[in-house]
């Protein structure tokens, strides 16, 4: 039973690990933080084994919640000189640059909806929110992101 659950987690890492990391990275705008959150979520899934019914949903939810906690923690500390977001320069994507200008909740909703393909109800579960709030964040985030991206092309 434990072996089966470990196999399921390993299979999840192989098939969705990169996708989860990219989603968390787009949400947090920080590759290091994304790596920490995703690694912690998978490690906890491995240890919990068969206690987890749906590893995929559990890991997605846990990675985002851990990342949210880390973001909150980081907002109380000062970043070191020279480490500020190289992401924008090096990953260079307009989308990531645009997402960076949105509030975290809107960013999370957009990433889970457009990139992870989660329906609103599950996004609400992942973000410990409710479907109405998620819809509001999606709508506002979508409008704002479109404006930001259009500004760049204007």
């Amino acid at each position, binding site marked *: 039973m434990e072996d089966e659950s470990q196999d399921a987690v390993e299979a999840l890492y192989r098939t969705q690990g990169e996708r989860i990391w990219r989603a968390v990275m787009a949400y947090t705008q920080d590759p290091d933080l994304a790596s920490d959150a995703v690694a912690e979520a998978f490690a906890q899934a491995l240890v919990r084994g068969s206690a987890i019914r749906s590893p995929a949903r559990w890991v997605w939810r846990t990675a985002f919640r851990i990342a949210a906690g880390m973001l909150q923690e980081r907002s109380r500390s000062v970043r070191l000189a020279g480490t500020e977001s*190289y992401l924008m320069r090096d990953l260079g994507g307009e989308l990531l640059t645009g997402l960076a200008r949105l509030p975290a909740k809107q960013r999370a909703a957009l990433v889970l909806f457009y990139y992870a393909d989660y329906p609103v109800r599950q996004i609400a579960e992942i973000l410990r929110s409710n479907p109405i709030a998620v819809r509001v964040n999606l709508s506002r985030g979508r409008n704002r992101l479109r404006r930001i991206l259009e500004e760049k092309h204007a």
Partner: protein
Amino acid sequence: MPDLKERFKGLDEVRVPELQRAIQARASILQRAEYQTTAAEAWERYERRPRMTTRLTQALAAATILALGVGVAVIFHYARTSGPAHPRPTPSLAPGIVAWVNRPAPAYSPPPQPSPTPYPTSAAPCLAGQLSVSAGPSGAAAGNDLEGFTFTNVSPTTCLLGGRPRVTGINAAGRRVALPLNPGQTFFGPVLPADLVPGAKGFLNFGTGYACGSGADQQATSQYRGLWFDLPRGGRLQSSLTLIAGSCGLVMDDLGLHAPVSPVPTPAPGTPGTLDAHVDLPQSVRPGQTLRYTVTLHNSTPVPVELNPCPSYSQMVDYRPSYSGTLRAEAFWLNCDQVKVIPPGGQVVYAMELRVPSDATTGLTKYSWELNTPDGPYAGGAVTIG
């Protein structure tokens, strides 16, 4: 403008770091905490248990053979045996733990890895004016921290990025100094020289760690500001970048690109390389004492694993933990006297011993164990010396 769904698909082009080692290391720590109590109880029993007789050994072996015969997945329970041909094993033993035997094995050298396919290197070496430098990538795995710098070819011509630059920075005293580097490569290598087409990126990786020395020394860091990179073929790239070295010091790779990842070979079914290993360590051990712990080998495959020929294993403890420190590594033969086969789903717990040198530095140190086969298995953990 493409719709948002299409825009988000672009995220798939973002390169993802390798996380497996970090996951395994973290899971090992979590599991260790979970099993701490179990391990402590096992060792308590180990100390209290009266010696077992050969008759009991035979009875247990017979029971195991019977269990094998009916195809039941079992946890093996063996007692020690003693005989003139074998070194004397640990004097007392708890049920379910195979005795440790002091039977040294030759040091193990894994078969050489195939050399990574080189990148094209026909262009002229990059000059400082052709490159820009920025921070990243960074990461952490198995106690190693990666602090990297990205070099982008901002010129219209392809150039060769490679070799070892001289890197200087301003230290805490305000003086520009060459970065003090320990010999060796980072945990995150290897890096190969490569031609960079216009717009392409190469890397210079530094490795560090934050768990060297003892006590408060482990928290010590050194910061170097305003890094300058003197390229091997001349020219200097100046930057306002900062590098922080942990208590383990710094190691640096050459300039270049990460070697392509080779596929990991799969061990043949039925071989010890298919086993999983888990170590249960005590929380601490004193210098000069014997570290007693257990290793569990678990067969999660549907095929029995034969321990014939009997494999050896290596146990390693970094008792002077630093990149330049002394690593104690010893190889022994596994106790295969009674356990010849691990059936599908079965597991065997082995007692292990390692003498900690009396001059060992106190503090948290890394420990690792592996079966001496090209495929492992490997297990590790941390133990406090002191």
